[in-house]
């Protein structure tokens, strides 16, 4: 089980690589498709109460019912309507992903900016710490922290955030150290700008595009991680609707041929991750106008 | 018969936001043992022409017209044949000497690769002998064959590039800005090397540059390019003595010189046009001091005057019999 969920993170990387190959010449299209998928899920999340036909936390029919007209995705072992659970689960997925990624960004970006600009010893120490966190397998780290903090939305989000702080830090820091040596930063120093002004008006705007890209990539990854945590029973306490938890539960019944319990949560996770990934990749190409221009 | 002739050569690049006409209806010819200077400012299409002569344009380029090399049309030659021409008959020195040498290969092996591309069975001693001779002829000690590119300075690297380009004794050498990234003094040294090559090896050359001053001493013919057009073409002496096109005239007088009696700074007003949305009519008209009504509306054709060509309305109606002494300066 550990193997399969550990690979989830790997898969999201592979997805991005594959996407890049698939949409070589039309990154715009890729971003648009990604965006449409995301919009779809956002609408689902907002209108969950109107879309879901049943209460997701109460039995609404016989258990283990295959897809029928009244339960289009079937029911689980407790008789919960899977479709309704997935619809409500969208909210959970978004909430955790957004909160976790936001925490990571709020910590990682300023630290990366400051440390990257100052450089020197501070840089070496902070980078070493960040690198060791980064080197740790993401899911295992999240598991450790989640196990320590216990269940609850904020705790889960926080455990995921810790995993992604170094991604921001590393990208921002390395960008800052290149931007720092650009002539326009020297120019700003030459006109007498303060360090804070230089970072704020000259450095940050130039690294902003990449933070937006990392943000959407990390959203994809953190949905995966959250699913992984729930899969291991470290996520949101049942019976709160959650895709990862549903997938984990479905897996126990796969030998009974109750395929619908795995297929639909799985599809939900894959499509939303795909949506974020396509959006992020598309943006990346967009912000890197050099790709595809001159030879 | 001329060695090389371009007839109505047009090259477009397809890009995300529209097509870009990098070269438009360019025609010129180059005789055996002649040197042509292709001169123009950045983005006017010089490199694009250079690449087209070897048919190595980027994939988003679309080419029209003819390029005749020894009467064969390079544009439609089968891939096999063109490959056998590259490096052996026509070779090229690229704009950036830092990136065009393989950094992890000894100079020696780069020479071997060049030989083997055309003569699979050549013996090593022979290859070394020829390479050594060529290196010596351009002022590099043959013992440096064992070195890697990073062990050379910029100027020496450019010499190696030249040596690699001429080692198979091509009939035509295309040199794309061979000195642009180099220092003033080194630039002079490299030009000296090229001049010697030209005299000793009887090679034909196309020298691409933005520096009208630099090529004066070495070329026989000059083509002046502006925004994808060849605006003037002719023999070097007549172009420098009596430039016809307004752009050529202004360019010549705006080159800073070291003469003490000449202290006034002259320049061309305005900016280079965009190739994606060039001005209507003559592309030089927004900057031209002689602009006429017709210039803003219609693109001038190329007029021929005493074996010179000029693309400017001022010369409408002037033909071979009339002397080209019109005073427009």
């Amino acid at each position, binding site marked *: 089980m550990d193997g399969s969920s550990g690979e989830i993170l790997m898969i999201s990387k592979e997805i991005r690589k594959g996407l890049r190959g698939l949409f070589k010449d039309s990154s715009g299209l890729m971003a648009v498709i990604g965006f449409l998928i995301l919009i779809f899920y956002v609408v689902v999340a907002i209108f969950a109460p109107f879309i879901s036909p049943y209460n997701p936390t109460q039995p609404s029919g016989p258990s283990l019912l295959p897809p029928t007209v009244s339960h289009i995705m079937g029911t689980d072992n407790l008789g919960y309507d899977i479709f309704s659970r997935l619809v409500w689960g969208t909210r959970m997925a978004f909430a955790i992903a957004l909160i976790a990624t936001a925490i990571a960004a709020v910590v990682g970006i300023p630290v990366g900016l400051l440390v990257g600009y100052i450089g020197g010893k501070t840089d070496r120490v902070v980078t070493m710490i960040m690198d060791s966190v980064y080197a740790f397998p993401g899911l295992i780290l999240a598991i450790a922290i989640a196990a320590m903090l216990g269940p609850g939305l904020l705790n889960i989000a926080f455990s995921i955030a810790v995993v992604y702080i170094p991604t921001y830090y590393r990208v921002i820091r390395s960008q800052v150290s290149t931007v720092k040596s*650009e*002539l*326009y930063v*020297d*120019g*700003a*120093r*030459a*006109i*007498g*700008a*303060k360090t804070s*002004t230089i970072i704020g*008006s*000259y450095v940050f*705007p*130039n690294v*902003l595009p990449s933070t937006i890209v990392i943000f959407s990539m990390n959203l994809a990854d953190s949905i995966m991680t959250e699913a992984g945590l729930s899969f291991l029973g470290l996520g949101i306490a049942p019976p709160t609707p959650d895709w990862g938890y549903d997938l984990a539960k479905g897996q126990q019944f796969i030998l009974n041929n109750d395929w619908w319990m795995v297929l639909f949560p799985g599809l939900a996770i894959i499509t939303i991750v795909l949506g974020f990934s396509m959006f992020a990749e598309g943006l990346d190409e967009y912000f890197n106008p050099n790709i595809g221009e001159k030879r | 018969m001329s060695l090389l002739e371009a007839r109505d050569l047009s090259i477009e690049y397809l890009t995300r936001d529209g097509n870009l006409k990098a070269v438009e209806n360019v025609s010129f010819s180059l005789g055996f043992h002649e040197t042509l200077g292709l001169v123009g*400012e*950045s983005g006017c299409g010089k490199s694009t022409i250079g690449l087209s002569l070897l048919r190595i344009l980027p994939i988003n380029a679309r080419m029209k017209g003819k390029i005749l090399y020894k009467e064969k049309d390079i544009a439609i030659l089968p891939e096999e044949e063109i490959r056998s021409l590259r490096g052996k008959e026509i070779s090229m020195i690229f704009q950036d000497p830092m990136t065009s040498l393989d950094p992890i290969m000894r100079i020696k092996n780069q020479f071997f690769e060049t030989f083997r591309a055309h003569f699979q069975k050549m013996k090593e001693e022979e290859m070394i002998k020829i390479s050594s001779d060529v290196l010596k002829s351009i002022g590099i000690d043959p013992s440096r064959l064992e070195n890697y590119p990073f062990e050379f*300075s*910029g*100027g*020496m690297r450019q010499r190696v590039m030249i040596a690699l380009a001429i080692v198979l004794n091509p009939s035509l050498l295309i040199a794309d800005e061979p000195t642009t990234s180099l*220092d*003033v*003094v*080194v*630039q*002079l*040294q490299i030009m*000296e090397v090229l001049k010697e090559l030209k005299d000793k090896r009887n090679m034909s050359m196309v020298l691409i540059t*933005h*520096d*009208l*001053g*630099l090529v*004066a*001493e070495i*070329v026989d013919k000059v083509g002046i390019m502006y925004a994808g057009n060849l605006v003037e073409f002719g023999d*070097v*002496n007549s172009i*420098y003595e009596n430039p016809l096109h307004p752009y050529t005239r*202004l*360019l*010549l007088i*705006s*080159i*800073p*010189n*070291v003469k*003490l009696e000449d*202290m006034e*700074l*002259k*320049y*061309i*007003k305005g*900016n*280079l046009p965009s190739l994606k949305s060039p001005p209507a009519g003559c592309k030089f008209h927004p900057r031209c001091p002689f602009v006429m009504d017709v210039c803003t509306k219609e693109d001038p054709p190329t007029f021929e005057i005493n074996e010179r060509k000029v693309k400017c309305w001022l010369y409408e109606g002037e033909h071979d019999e009339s002397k080209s002494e019109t005073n427009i300066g």
Partner: protein
Amino acid sequence: MMNQNQKLISVRNLKKYFPLKVSWLKIFKERPYVRAVDDLSFEIKYGETLGLVGESGSGKTTVGRTLVRLENPTGGQILFEDVDLAKLFGESLRTKRKDFQMIFQDPMASLNPYMRIGNAIEHPLKIHKMGNKAERKIRVYEILEKVGLPPEEFYNRFPRHLSGGQRQRVVIARAMVTNPKFVVADEVTAMLDVSIRSQILKLLIDMKNEFGLTYLFITHDLASAKYICDKIAVIYLGKIIEIAKTYDIFKEPLHPYTKILIASVPVPDPKMKKKKFIPSGEIPSPINIPSGCRFHPRCPYAMEICAKVEPELKEINGRTVACHLYD
């Protein structure tokens, strides 16, 4: 101007060494340095333009950057009026910066791509708290007009929509907006198109005349220095080897290296097929500076003494040169 004949800047024994990274195994040996600027002295009077000319790697940019204190000098003094800039740090240096400015070689890289032209030019005024919002805007409009960019058209544009020449104009405007006394112009025309270069030179000359500026004009191209400089200093491997009035330098260059630099300016004349005075080799590395006269390995006139004794920069018959030929 009242200060006409007084010094604005006087640089004394300026040194800038960059330490090289060495492996810790060699820690006991003497630490190698790049001696980019090696004991250099010169003066610039009010309203004067001094040209600093030399090959790539000779230390020109480093001199300029050290003068405006983008680098900390390793040694020496930079007297700006009565203040030694070499001893200024932190806040006092920052506030002093409105009096001296630097224009960089690469106009594509010296503007923040995310800042509109108008804001970029206004920024120095804001930083030094000069004027209120309305006054600043008027000043920016004024200066845009001066550098030949119609303000209505350019105020709100981003740098990427400008050509190289236009960007260099913006950079010049930004450097001049605080009314500095002294401007370092580092190869400002080198990366521009041929037909644009003289335009920018002309603009610099006009700005100088209008604001009574003092320039250090850095270039490798002696020909363009001719039009703008009152005096020219030739630098070789971090040291000045000749300094003279522009007229004198072109009329009769003394130092062999100066002669070479003048000869290396291409002449647009196909009939000038004369054999030129070309040195062998390239500029050596500033890590291992040759003994004696640092030019001796390339000098066609080198004598025995040249490899042993370093010639001093001294005055001979009203000219200043560092070469044993004139002992």
